[in-house]
């Protein structure tokens, strides 16, 4: 892999983390001293993706804005890696009229026609719409692909199995991605899933399956390259499961008392920085520049969001129908 590509993956991950750190700050800033989930500049549930950036960066490096991504309730890293406008993303999270959904959606319901991005707050239910996008792309005779993302908990849901079977049957240009972060909220993978690798489930539906064990962005990049090239070439769907890590809670406010692995988690971003530095691709100075640029973009987006108007209460019933 060339240095530019590697630096690109690193930049994407840093941008995503910087964005979420900013959201984290503002999310908690005005919920104290009595913590109220519905209060503050950013109300509601907040599922952050810190630790899972390698999955999004590695997959989306092979996509263009013409390709579709359907993500989960934890969508920011994929939204950012797929090139969503940070201002529109931030404004939606802050519930502003200038947001992607004009404040009607929120952070679990991001719909961006310009990057064919969507996400769903319902486990495994982002898979079926991706089939439809892939179906439309195939009918249009173009080599566009749809990437459908879920967590490992979703692989026990009917929607997952129905979708993988149908995509295989109809040879749809879909790449299924499973982010295995070990935890379905508080239930560990070993207590929910009867097999160790969901790549096995892929082969049971007659498609290629791969499992990346070490949350390596380059491992994801390699596997995604193969899967996406095959989908573009009309060779049907593939599945990639990545053993990744959820550095923070299921949602903000989750004390994670059920978790005994917190002391052993590896943050993939500094780990990748060290690797790039030892390979002579990244210097401390360059890393600083990359971080500074990421923060500049994030600050701009958050400032845009905070200075944007809230939707008018009189318009609450607008947009139910086209």
């Amino acid at each position: 892999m060339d240095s530019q590509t590697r630096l690109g993956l690193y930049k994407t991950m840093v941008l995503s983390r910087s964005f979420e750190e900013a959201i984290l700050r503002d999310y908690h800033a005005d919920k104290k001293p009595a913590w109220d989930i519905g209060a503050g500049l950013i109300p509601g549930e907040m599922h952050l993706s810190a630790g899972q950036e390698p999955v999004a960066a590695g997959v989306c490096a092979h996509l263009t804005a013409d390709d579709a991504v359907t993500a989960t309730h934890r969508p920011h890293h994929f939204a950012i890696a797929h090139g969503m406008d940070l201002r529109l993303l931030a404004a939606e999270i802050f519930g502003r009229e200038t947001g992607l959904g004009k404040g009607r959606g929120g952070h679990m319901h991001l719909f961006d026609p310009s990057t064919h991005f969507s996400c769903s707050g319902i486990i495994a239910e982002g898979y079926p719409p991706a089939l439809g996008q892939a179906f439309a792309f195939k009918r249009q005779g173009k080599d566009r692909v749809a990437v459908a993302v879920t967590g490992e908990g979703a692989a026990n849901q009917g929607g997952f199995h129905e979708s993988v079977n149908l995509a295989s049957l109809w040879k749809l240009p879909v790449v299924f991605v499973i982010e295995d972060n070990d935890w379905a909220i508080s239930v560990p993978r070993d207590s929910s899933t009867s097999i160790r690798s969901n790549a096995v489930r892929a082969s049971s539906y007659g498609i290629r399956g791969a499992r990346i064990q070490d949350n390596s962005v380059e491992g994801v990049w390699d596997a995604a390259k193969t899967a996406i090239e095959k989908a573009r070439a009309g060779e049907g769907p593939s599945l990639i499961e990545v053993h990744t890590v959820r550095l923070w809670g299921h949602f903000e406010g989750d004390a994670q008392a059920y978790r005994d692995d917190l002391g052993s988690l590896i943050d993939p971003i500094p780990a990748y920085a060290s690797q790039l530095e030892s390979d002579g691709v990244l210097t401390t100075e360059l890393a600083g520049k990359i971080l500074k640029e990421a923060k500049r973009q994030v600050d701009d987006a958050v400032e845009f969001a905070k200075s944007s108007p809230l939707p008018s209460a009189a318009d609450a019933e607008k947009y139910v129908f086209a």
Partner: protein
Amino acid sequence: MVLIDTSSASVTTRKLTTAKAMVEGISQEMELDQSVFVLGEDVGAYGGIFSSTTGLLEKFGPKRVLDTPISETAFMGLATGAAVEGMRPIVELMFVDFFGVCMDQIYNHMAKIHYESGGNVKVPLVLMTAVGGGYSDGAQHSQCLWGTFAHLPGLKVVVPSNPFDAKGLMISAIRDDNPVVYMFHKGVMGLPWMAKNPRSLGAVPEQSYEVPIGKASVVRTGKDVTIISLSLSVHHALDAADELATQGVDCEVIDLRSLVPLDRGTILESAGKTGRVLVVDEDYKSFGLSGEIAAVICESDPRLLKVPFARLAVPDVPIPYSRTLEYAVLPTADRIISEIKHLMG
């Protein structure tokens, strides 16, 4: 766009069953618009269990008429995703009773995307589904459930009762930029293997036309009492009105045709004219369509009614299997006559 009202159906003498009228509507739109396609269970070689897609596979081929696996969640979501990318799917859920295995894709996804996206993403699709009982198919294959779908924001809901409306509403539904739930009662389809009311066969123009979504039809004018109904119960209401006319009672019959949007104007106008309202609904009684219409009248002006509002709906029990029990709960012409006589004092 050609708008034709039911009154001008007399310009044609060609008669079709409701099923054939539906298929003709689909077929004409598929010819016009390459983005329209049909998918669902047994919609291909079988032609739809209730003949809603007969002949389409032969005419348009397997790329546009697709049999799916019994994976309702997957293919409902597929329809939504394809619609988001500019296609116009017609997806069939064989029986509305099956919605339980795929409702998330319907009410959380296809219905909400337009709103959640602030109007930036449209979902133009038709979800067509068979409803209704009367032929001893039991509690899991006989429900109407239109009140359930109409309750959830983001879905238009249409329920044709006759061939003319079936074709026109289908064409309107396909052209609509929203998800439209198109619910056809098996008893109005004119199927050769099921007892049918003669109203299941009717005049249908050969050209393409739209019946507007959201517009009820006054299918019989009268001055004494208003019967508000939809689907197969409209047939029963008209039969009852014919009989009551011989006894000196002049019934007005309204076929709602659309539940979302609901034509409140036509309901209120007729209620104001006759002062007596009976709602006939094959869906469950409580928390549904009949209560909604009572609310529409009350919210406008309860003094519109000279006598208390009345409703004939399926009591809150699962649809029974045995014929005597099933017909003890379904609306029938006899039961409508009895209710009207009560209303007339």
